[in-house]
């Protein structure tokens, strides 16, 4: 057996190389820049520059590309407009997430523990805090996660799919565990996320093995060809395809693979929740789109029922359980489960429209998620002596927030309305295009379930708006909550709010950008 070196087209990989290269450099920075404060500044600047440069490169390539895109790394990665559109989206979430990672309270406190390796509540922890230690590793970890997600959106081979999955998952497991406050909760969330994540990776890998066994290849194109021609192996192919899809549904957080979301969302430091909620869902949707449209398109009839059932289960369970939550972060976690269901609605019948609808949906959902968690990170509990504590995530603590901070409460209301899909917000256009895609394939019963779930979901979004604007601060609680002004987090809130409104009122340009991206992928799928 001879081995030939694959031809590698470097230019299409430039955005990826920039991000992953910067991540490698950032690790060196960890070792060589000793003072925490300086290290933090260097890391922040390095991350932002790398992410923006990568986004710029990706956009330039997007405009230069035409036709089916470039296949690089021996068919394992395809850089086309679809991939680049997703990459830009993930990079935007990366930039906003990095800004949140770097935000600090007025007292100079950040969201992360000063030293991840010490036990919670130990004297070492106190010492680390006093010495001003900081885990600046969060910046390279985030860069690796972003790099992995970008790759995830572009892979066209099952082996590389698995590699990309691990590249972005491992940093996230660590990030989830690094909360500064309520560290046991953080550890618990991270452990659950890790165990279930490992489980899902195994399922995905198992499925890939089945598919390799049946078709003799791990490349999407080869599998698509094999689905038509491999006779007598239908059961093997179908089992493999279902397992690969299930592995990805874990990452999207759809029922019944959602059980990690509430704990991970609640336990993780809020900036990590924001980044994870927005970017993971986008990357996993991108990968699912690609594997479904390029490899499993021939299995439409066999796989559709899976999407129907899981979509309905996610929407209903996410909505119903979110109704009874009393913790804000958990409520948004279950709302994310419901949104996973809405995403899967667009897959019903594998409509062409999904290729342009889903990037828009994820853009609108991700921006609102980023913004909402950025708001949460600024609403703090306050002790009797006036020191500012952790985030006030109990719903009741948000009563009367509209009085305290009209800007934050107004922005939060906007994000919630966008989640609920009220017109003139990005969320409405997202739902509209996603539902249109499903109806174009005749899946209107599914859409009917989706709108009923939307109406029920509106109830708990609206409940928070009622609390913020129409409820007075409870007696004796006037000083229990404090708005902590953090310029970076506030910047994220304003940018996200502006984009949510902008995409809601003039979605045209972005829609057409994604539209072009979608058409080309379908061309490649044949």
């Amino acid at each position: 057996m001879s081995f030939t070196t694959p031809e590698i087209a470097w230019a299409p990989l430039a955005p990826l190389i920039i991000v992953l290269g910067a991540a490698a450099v950032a690790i060196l920075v960890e070792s060589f820049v000793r003072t925490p404060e300086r290290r933090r500044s260097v890391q922040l600047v390095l991350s932002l520059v790398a992410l923006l440069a990568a986004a710029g490169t990706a956009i330039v390539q997007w405009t230069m590309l035409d036709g089916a895109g470039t296949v690089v790394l021996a068919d394992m990665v395809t850089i086309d407009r679809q991939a680049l559109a997703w990459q830009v989206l993930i990079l935007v979430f990366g930039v906003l997430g990095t800004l949140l990672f770097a935000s600090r309270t007025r007292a100079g406190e950040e969201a992360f523990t000063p030293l991840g390796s010490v036990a919670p509540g130990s004297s070492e922890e106190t010492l680390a805090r006093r010495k001003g230690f900081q885990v600046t590793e969060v910046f390279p970890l985030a860069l690796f996660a972003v790099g992995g997600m970008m790759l995830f959106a572009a892979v066209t081979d099952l082996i590389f799919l698995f590699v990309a999955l691990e590249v972005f998952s491992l940093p996230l497991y660590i990030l989830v565990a690094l909360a500064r406050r309520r560290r046991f909760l953080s550890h618990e969330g991270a452990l659950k996320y890790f165990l279930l994540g490992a489980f899902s990776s195994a399922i995905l890998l198992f499925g890939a093995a089945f598919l390799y066994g049946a078709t003799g290849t791990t490349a999407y194109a080869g599998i698509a060809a094999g689905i038509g021609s491999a006779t007598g192996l239908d059961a093997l192919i179908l089992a493999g395809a279902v397992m690969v899809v299930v592995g990805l549904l874990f990452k999207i957080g759809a029922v019944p693979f959602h059980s990690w979301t509430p704990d991970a969302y609640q336990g993780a430091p809020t900036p990590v929740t924001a980044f994870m909620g927005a970017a993971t869902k986008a990357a996993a949707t991108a990968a699912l789109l690609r594997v479904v449209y390029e490899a499993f398109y021939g299995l439409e009839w066999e796989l559709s029922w899976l999407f129907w059932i899981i979509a309905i289960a996610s929407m209903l369970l996410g909505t119903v359980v979110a109704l009874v939550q009393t913790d804000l972060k958990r409520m948004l976690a279950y709302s994310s489960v419901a949104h996973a269901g809405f995403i899967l609605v667009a897959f019903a019948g594998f409509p062409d429209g999904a290729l342009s609808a889903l990037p828009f949906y994820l853009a609108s959902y991700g921006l609102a998620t980023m913004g909402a968690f950025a708001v949460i990170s600024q609403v703090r509990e306050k002790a009797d002596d006036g020191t500012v504590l952790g985030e006030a995530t109990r719903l009741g603590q948000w009563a009367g927030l509209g009085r305290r901070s009209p800007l934050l409460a107004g922005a939060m209301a906007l994000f919630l309305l966008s989640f609920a899909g009220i017109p003139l917000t990005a969320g409405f256009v997202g739902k509209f295009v996603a539902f249109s895609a499903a109806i174009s394939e005749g899946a209107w019963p599914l859409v009917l379930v989706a709108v009923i779930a939307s109406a029920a979901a509106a109830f708990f979004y609206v409940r928070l708006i009622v609390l913020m604007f129409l409820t007075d601060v409870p007696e004796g609680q006037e000083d229990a909550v404090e708005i902590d002004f953090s310029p970076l987090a506030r910047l994220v809130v304003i940018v996200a709010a502006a984009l949510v409104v902008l995409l809601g009122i003039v979605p045209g340009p972005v829609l057409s950008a994604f539209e072009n991206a979608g058409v080309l992928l379908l061309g490649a799928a044949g």
Partner: protein
Amino acid sequence: MFPILTVMVALPAVGAAVLWALPSAARDRVREIALGITVLELALAVVLFLQFDTATAGEIQFSETYAWIPQIGASWALGVNGIGLLMIVLAAILTPLAILAGWWEDSDGDRRTRYLALILLSQAFMVGIFAARDVFLFYVLFEAMLIPLYFLIGSFGGAQRRYAAVKFLLYSLAGGLIMLVGVVALYFQGPGGDQAFLTDNLTDLSMSTSTERLIFLAFFFAFAIKAPMVPVHTWLPTVAENARPGTTALLVAVLDKIGTFGMLTLCVALFPEAAAWAAPVIIILAVISVIYGGLLAIGQKNMLRLVAFTSVSHFGIMVLGIFAFTQTSVEGAALYMFNHGLSTGALFFAVGFLIHRRGTADVTEYGGLQRIVPVFAGTFLVVGLSALALPGLSPFVSEIMVLVGAFSVAKAAVIVSALGVVLAALYVLLTYQKVFTGPAPEARASFRELTRRERVVLWPLIALMLVLGFLPGIAINVLSEPSADIVATVPVQEAGE
């Protein structure tokens, strides 16, 4: 051509933004500014009415079309025929009056600013909806309008205002989202392209019968909630009881007309065959609304709830007129939409004035006011009589047109509905009796006569009802052609019930 409709949408919206942006120091003049904006809007509406070409009232006039989201076929397309024109005029008349009627509310400048800004914003949405010529645009405004209304109800009003606001929102949202399925499904029946959602491109589509019926039902469901029809009317009394009378006046007099307006211009115009198919059931529901609303109105102690239930009854008459599909009945229904706005608006304002004086809407707390405040009593009586359709006042004309027009196709329904008129006499006169007649209360001096500002609110409405009561032709002129067009699209059905 001067884009008058876009200006009429933009003016109150910009006005709302200006109010919000005002520095705190300038907020003591905020009522005057808001009133000025709405009066300017009224002036524009008058211009619109005068410029409107009555000879071609059935055609869309003042048409504007701009590309908005060509990717999904949505355009910013405005234009009105006679029906839309009258609705816009109604909105323009009632908004400044609502601001005047609530002049005394809110001592706090910030709160007042928020209230007025929300009122202006709602007006922008109302005008936009009545002028929308694009289904997507209509839907977007229809749903987005819920936000200012939600805050109007939930932030300003009575003890249970939060509950009322949430109830209102969830009812409307449920209807709206079902309609969304219809909107999307309609897109795939239409021609597609950059202007797929223009109503012109969606009329006369060839759909399969079952598709047409399903889409029709999706639209109708949303409009039935908005127009409050039994059995989805229950949000209205709750809202009326808890919101400010000014808010409720706008809500019932203008915004709820979006329901009947939508039935006329979207449900029937786009899906005539499905409309004919569903008409018998809808007429039955309408008759139930008439009777049930009237009966419940009689049992109410709270005057705001009472007026709300009378409106449920009146909306039943409008729906009956629309779905009887005769020239006279449809014309009557469209005219009633306008007249009911004047009459109910005036009624809510008047009740609001009573509540302002005594601090309660409970009818048993009043009595014998006739001798203390004769002008108030007289005015209230006239307004009340308009609600029971007394000849000489304009609601009479429209109600009789609906009943006479519908008689040929739905005799039983008309006969039962006519009972509604008797019920109306009961609830109006009983209320008048309880509030204004009887022995004079002890604290005579504490009850003030109608002030000049309050007269400015009520008397023009009464004058308008008198004019239209004797000269209904002014309004019917612009309504008959669009009504004829609508009736012509509906396939002929057999007479009788």
